[in-house]
């Protein structure tokens, strides 16, 4: 089993076999040539292996130039209603637990001085401790520009549930970026809490070993990093926002 792939094409190359095989598997996946079972295996791996997922995404981007071959065809009218019925009728996924992005602590903590968030903060009193609820169409929304950074945040407020969702859109400048959230506490160097947009609704789960440190008096900060987050474990890009964490009244 150890030597089984020595006759793999190109296996004699200078790179490690795993990297080579990952490249091929990712490329074959994007090409679409794998069996259904193999496709599910690749997708399961993507969900747990960020580096492998990045390799698949790179193939996707590289090969997407071939998408020009697809000629647009307007679909029949009745499809749209069917789709909306199927999409909107589905029960809300279980991932709707309250996240940092929806928490008042988070918003109090942040000194987004240049953001026009005041207008929507009024709706947030109803937020505390809310479990998942069905989401209706947002009633209010805002696009917020963080001055001078090329980063935008968009917010949608759902009046029926009181939920305010905010997501960063860090794509205004050329070149890809991620927004990384950092915890600064107790004289430690900033420790990463994770990359913001990749976990849906701008939320993330604080690593277990950092939860004790996330308390009143700590500071949260957001930096702009290469896609997937800082390669070094330290903030490498500009800090675009920071502020102290305060306990909710």
């Amino acid at each position: 089993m150890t030597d089984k792939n020595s006759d793999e094409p190109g296996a004699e190359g200078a790179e490690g076999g795993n990297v080579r095989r990952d490249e091929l598997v990712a490329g074959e996946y994007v090409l679409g040539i794998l069996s259904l079972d193999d496709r599910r295996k690749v997708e399961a791996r993507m969900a747990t292996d960020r580096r492998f997922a990045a390799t698949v995404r790179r193939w996707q981007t590289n090969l997407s130039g071939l998408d020009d071959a697809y000629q647009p065809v307007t679909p029949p009218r009745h499809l749209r209603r069917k789709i909306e019925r199927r999409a909107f009728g589905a029960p809300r996924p279980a991932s709707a637990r309250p996240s940092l992005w929806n928490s008042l602590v988070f918003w109090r903590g942040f000194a987004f001085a240049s953001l026009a968030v005041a207008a929507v903060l009024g709706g947030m009193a109803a937020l505390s401790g809310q479990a998942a609820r069905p989401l209706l169409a947002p009633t209010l929304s805002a696009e917020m520009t963080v001055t001078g950074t090329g980063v935008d945040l968009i917010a949608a407020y759902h009046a029926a549930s009181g939920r305010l969702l905010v997501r960063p859109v860090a794509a205004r400048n050329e070149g890809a970026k991620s927004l990384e959230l950092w915890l600064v506490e107790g004289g430690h160097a900033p420790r990463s809490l994770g990359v913001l947009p990749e976990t849906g609704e701008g939320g993330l789960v604080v690593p277990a070993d950092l939860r004790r440190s996330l308390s009143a008096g700590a500071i949260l900060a957001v930096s702009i990093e290469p896609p997937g987050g800082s390669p070094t474990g330290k903030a490498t890009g500009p800090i675009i926002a920071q502020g102290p964490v305060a306990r909710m009244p």
Partner: protein
Amino acid sequence: MNDEDLALLISRVGLKDRDAFSRLYRASSPKLFGVCLRMLKDRAEAEEALQEVYVKIWARADGFVPAATSAAGWLQAIARNQAIDRLRARKPVADVLDEAYDLPDSTADPEACAVAAGERRRIDACLDELAPDRADAVRRAYIEGASYQELADHFAVPLNTMRTWLRRSLLTLRECLER
């Protein structure tokens, strides 16, 4: 609609904005229907696939990372994946991710993080570096969703030869795209 506008719409759909979903559908459905039709070559099945595609877009838009992929590329990947799943379910092909291929932890590869932006248009130039029949095989696999067996039949070569063609082509493409 440019890619930035499309990205903004997808981000809004990620916030469960139904109006944004309708606008996204109007802006993108002809292209995605074109993908489904071209791959599935069956109108009824393409209509069914398109519904599945947009239900997925609605469910997954909150995971869209504008920095990581182009908006159009993200949408088209969902459509292609849906169509390919249907093709493979319709006519199963052999599994190849055997134990030798089986998904070990990836070793450190700093290049895996290399940004692909800007490389996109180079795919055509890199395909030109392959022998014409091999470039054609890559295109047929990607665009039509042809399987190894179908490609082997079309080019009248043994199945294993076709596997080697495509895998070598992928390695050549990767090398070319990184130059």
